[in-house]
C-alpha cells in the first residue's frame, strides 16, 4: 500500500504559541518499503507516524494511502481504515494488563476475523511466544511484551506497519531480536513499514532512511543494500 504526503503541515497551538511539528512534508512510500525515520526529540517523527496512522490529522496538506485522501474520510471510515490497514507498535507496548498475551492479540484479531483466537495463537507462535500465550503482561519480560505488541499489530495482517521506538525500552539483544522479527514478517507480508527511532544504526536495515529536524525532512536516503537486522550493532 503506497503512502503519499503532499505539503503536509502539523501545527500545535495558535498565534505566538504555535509550534510547527511538521512543515511542508512531501513524501511517497511505495508498497513494501521499510523506512526508518530518524531525528532528535521534537523533530516530528512520531507526529508523522500518527498522521499516517490516522490517529491525528494534518493542519494542512494531503495524506493519501492507496490513493485515498485521509482528510476526506469520516470518523467511521477512519476507524475502518485503522482497523483494516494499520498496525501500531508502541514504545511502551501498551498491553492490556488484565488480558493474557493471547487475549491481547485476540482482542484486535476479533476486530477483523471471526476466528480471532486461532489467528492470535498462530501469530504469537510466529513471534516465538507459543509457550507464553497464557501469561499476563506482568509475567513477561520487556522483549516478550514487545513481541506480543508486534503480534497484536500483525494479527490483522495490515498493509502498513507503524512502529514508534519499538526498541526504546529494550536492551540490545532483545531490541535486535524484535527488529529481526519486524523485518522478516514485513518482508513476508510485503508491508509498508515506517519505523521511528533515535537509533541511527537501525537505518542500516531499512530500504530508506528519513532524517527529520524541526519538522522538516533534512535527509532522504535510499539504501539499496539493507542488511539483516541480526547483523546490526550499536
Amino acid at each position: 500500500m503506497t503512502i503519499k504526503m503532499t505539503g503536509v503541515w502539523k501545527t500545535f497551538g495558535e498565534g505566538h504559541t504555535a509550534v510547527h511539528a511538521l512543515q511542508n512534508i512531501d513524501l511517497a512510500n511505495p508498497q513494501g518499503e521499510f523506512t526508518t525515520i530518524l531525528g532528535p526529540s521534537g523533530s516530528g517523527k512520531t507526529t508523522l507516524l500518527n498522521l499516517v496512522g490516522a490517529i491525528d490529522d494534518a493542519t494542512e496538506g494531503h495524506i493519501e494511502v492507496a490513493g485515498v485522501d485521509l482528510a476526506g474520510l469520516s470518523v467511521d471510515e477512519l476507524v475502518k481504515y485503522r482497523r483494516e490497514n494499520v498496525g501500531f507498535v508502541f514504545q511502551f507496548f501498551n498491553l492490556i494488563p488484565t488480558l493474557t498475551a493471547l487475549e491481547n492479540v485476540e482482542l484486535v484479531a476479533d476486530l477483523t476475523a471471526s476466528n480471532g483466537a486461532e489467528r492470535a495463537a498462530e501469530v504469537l507462535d510466529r513471534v516465538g511466544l507459543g509457550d507464553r500465550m497464557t501469561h499476563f503482561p506482568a509475567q513477561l519480560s520487556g522483549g516478550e511484551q514487545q513481541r506480543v505488541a508486534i503480534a497484536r499489530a500483525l494479527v490483522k495482517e495490515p498493509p502498513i506497519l507503524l512502529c514508534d521506538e519499538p526498541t526504546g525500552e529494550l536492551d540490545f539483544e532483545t531490541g535486535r531480536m524484535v527488529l529481526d522479527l519486524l523485518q522478516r514478517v514485513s518482508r513476508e507480508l510485503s508491508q509498508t513499514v515506517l519505523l521511528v527511532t533515535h537509533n541511527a544504526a537501525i537505518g542500516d536495515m531499512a530500504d530508506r532512511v528519513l532524517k527529520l529536524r524541526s519538522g522538516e525532512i533534512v535527509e532522504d536516503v535510499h539504501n539499496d543494500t539493507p542488511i539483516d537486522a541480526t547483523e546490526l550493532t550499536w
Partner: protein
Amino acid sequence: MVKPLHRKLIRDIARHKPQFIAITLTIFLGVAIFGAAFDSYTNLVASYDQTAVNYRFANLTIAGGDTETIAAFAGSDPAVESVEIRTTADVPLRVDDTKLLGRAISVPAGDQPMVNQLEIMTGSYPANGDANVVLVEDHMASHFDLAPGDSLDILIGDTWQHVTVGGVALSPEYIWPARNRQELLTTPDNFGVVFVSEELAEQITGEGPNEVAVYYAAGESDEEVSAALSAEGRELGATNIYTREEQASNNALTEDVKGLEEMAIFFPMMFLAAAGLAAYVMLSRLVHSQRPHIGTFLANGFTRRQVLVHYLGYGIVPGLIGSIPGAIVGVLLARTITRLYTGILSIPLTVVDFYPTTLIAAIVFGLVASLLAALAPALVASRVVPAEAMRGETPSGGGRRSLLERVFPPLRKVPAAWRMTFRGVGRNPRRTIYTIIGVVLSLMLVLVSWGLIDTTRHLMDRQFIEIQREDATVYFAGPTATEDVAALVDIDGISSAEPALTMPVAISANEAHYETALTVLQDDTEMHRFANVDGGWIDLPSNGVVLGQATRDLLDIKVGDTVAMTVAEGDTIRPIVAAFVDEPLGTMAYVGRAHAEALTGSALPATSALISYDEGVDAKVLRNTITDIPRVAAFEDAQVLFDLMQRFMVLFYAFVGVMLVFGGAMAFALIFNAMSVNIAERTREVATLLAVGTERRSISRYITAENMLVAAMGIPLGLIIGTLAAGAALSSFNSDLFTFKLHIQPTTYLFASLAILAVALISQIPGLRAIRRISIPQVVKERSA
C-alpha cells in the same frame, strides 16, 4: 505569595474539579443534615423543657383513689413544689350537631392552677362565679371553629347543658391531642378537651376531685420521688399513675423528636462515610499518577513530612469548603425547622438558640472525615521511593482470570473484549470494594427511609384492616345494656353490632404495674382479630385475658401466670394470661365477655358498640342517624381515622423524597468518582484500542458494562445491609405504644436497586464523554497514563 506546592494543590483540584465538587457536596450535605437535625433536636427539647417549666407541667399525675390523702402526702414531700387537686372526666360533648367523646378538666376559678397552667390564646381565663363558662383546648377550637362567646353542650346525666366558650387555651398536656397513651391517634371529631369550673366538673362526675397533679421543685424529674409517690398512690387506691415522661402528649412528642436525634447521627454518618470513600478513591489514584512528581520532590530535597502535608491538603480543602458552609446552612436550617415544627404543633414556647458547639462539631466532623480519607493516600505518597517512582510506570501487577470466568468456565469463550470487562472488575480490588461500599451506603439510606414508609403503611393496614375489623365505633353516654347494642342492627345501614366495654385498668404482677385499657369483647367477636406473637391468628380465649406483648417484659410474665387487674372503681380481678398478642399500636388487654362476667360475678354492660356497615352505605348519613340517638355520645368512623393517619404520611413521603434525592446525590458522588478514576486509569488502554480501530462506542460499552457489573455486585449486599439497618433504625422507635416490625415491599427492593443502577449509569456519562476527548497520539506516547 502562594507557595508553588500550594499552587500545585490548587491547580490539581481545579483539574479534577468535578470529582472534588462531588466530594465537597457530599461533605456539605452530611454536615448540613447534622447541623439541622441536631440543632432542631436540641431546640425542640429545649422548647418542650421550657414549656414544661413555664406552664408548670405536672411531673406526676395520680388518678383515682383517696385524692385528698394522696395530695396531702405529696405536698409533704420536700421535693414537691406544688400539688393541684382536680377533676377529670371523659364526657360527651356536643358542638352544633356533632357529638364527641370529650374530656372535661377542672381548673380553679379566677386563678391559674398551680400545676398544668394554660396559655390563653383568645378570650380570658374564667373569673369567679362563671361556672358555666369554659375554656376550649386549641385543637378542638380550631376544628370546630369555636371562639369566645360561642357555645357548646356537655352531657350531664341525661341532660345536655349549654355552656359558653370563655376562651381558647393551650395546655402542656394536650400539645398532641391524645385521649391516653394507648390512643395516641384520635380524630378531632371524636376527641376534644374543655377546661371547666370545679363546680361544673362535680356536676359532671357527681362526685369530687379524682386526680392529683404534682409539680416537683424547679420542674425537674425525679425518679425516686415519683416511685415513692406512686407507691403511696397505689396504696391509697389510685388506678392510673403516670409521670411526665409517660404522659400521652409528652410521650408522643418525645418519640417524634427522638427521630430527629437518630437522624442527626445516622444520616450524617452515611454521608461523611460516602464522602470519605469518594475522596479516598480519588486521592489514591492522584497519588499513584503523581508518583514520578513525588519522586522528583523527594529527590530534590523535600521532606517526607512536606509531601505528607501536601497530600493531606487534598482532604483539607474539600473538607473545609464543604463543612463550613454546610455547618452554617445546617444551623440556619435548624432555626426554620424548629419554628415550623413548633408552629405546626402549637407548642406555646419556641426556643431557638445558637449552639456554637454544634457549629464547631459539624465543621470538625466534615474535616475529620475528609482528612481521614486523605491520610492513607498521603502516607503512601510520603513513603514513595524516589528512584523507583522516577523510573516511571509502576509494575502493572499480575493479571488473572476473573472469578466469573473461574466459576462459569464457558465465559472464557466470550470475545476477549468482554473478558477484559470481567477482569476489569477485579483489577483494582480495593476500588471495587469501595464502589460496592458506596452502593451499599446508598441503598442503606434509601431502604432506611423507604422502609419507614413501607413499615408504617403495613402497620396501619395491619392495625386498622386486619386486626380492627369494625367499620365504626359507637360510644355511649353511659353504661348500656348489651341488648340495646344488639338493637342497633335494626338501623338501616348497620349489618352487625357487637357490645364492647372498655375501661382503664392497672395490671400488676411481680411488683410491676402497667396502666392500659381493658376491653371486654363478645366471645366470638368478629370485630377484632388476635394476632398471636408466634405469627398466627387465635380466637379470643374462653379462659383468661389476652395482653399486648409488651407486658411480657414490662411485668415479667408468661402465658399461664396470674395477674391482678384493678379497674377504675378500685375493684380487682385476677385472671390468668391466656395469650400475648402482637398489635402494632398500643399495648391493650382483652377478655371475653363470658369470662369477664364470671370473674366479676355480674352481667357487664357496654360502653361502646363495634359496628359494621352494610355494603354501599353512606357513612355520613349513618353517623347522623346514630348520633341522633340520645344515649350515643360519639361516633368514630374507622375510615376517617385511617385517612387521618394517611394524611400524616404525606410528611413521611416528603422526608423520604428528600432522603432519596440526598441518597441519589451521595451515590452519584461516590460512583462518579470511582468511575472517573476507573476511566482515567485506563486512558492509555483506551487510546491503544482506538488506535487499532476499535470504535469509541464499543469501548464505552465495555467500560459501562464493567462499572455496572461492580454496581450490580453491591446491590445484593446493599439490600441485605440496608434491610438490617432499617430494622435497627426502626427498633429504636419501639415502645409499649408502637411496635415497628420492619416490612419492606418487594417492589421497594426492586425500585431501590433500579434507582441505584440508574444513578450508576448516569454517573458514568462524564467519564464516557471524556473518552471521546482522548487524544490518541498524546496518550500512547505518554510513559504513564
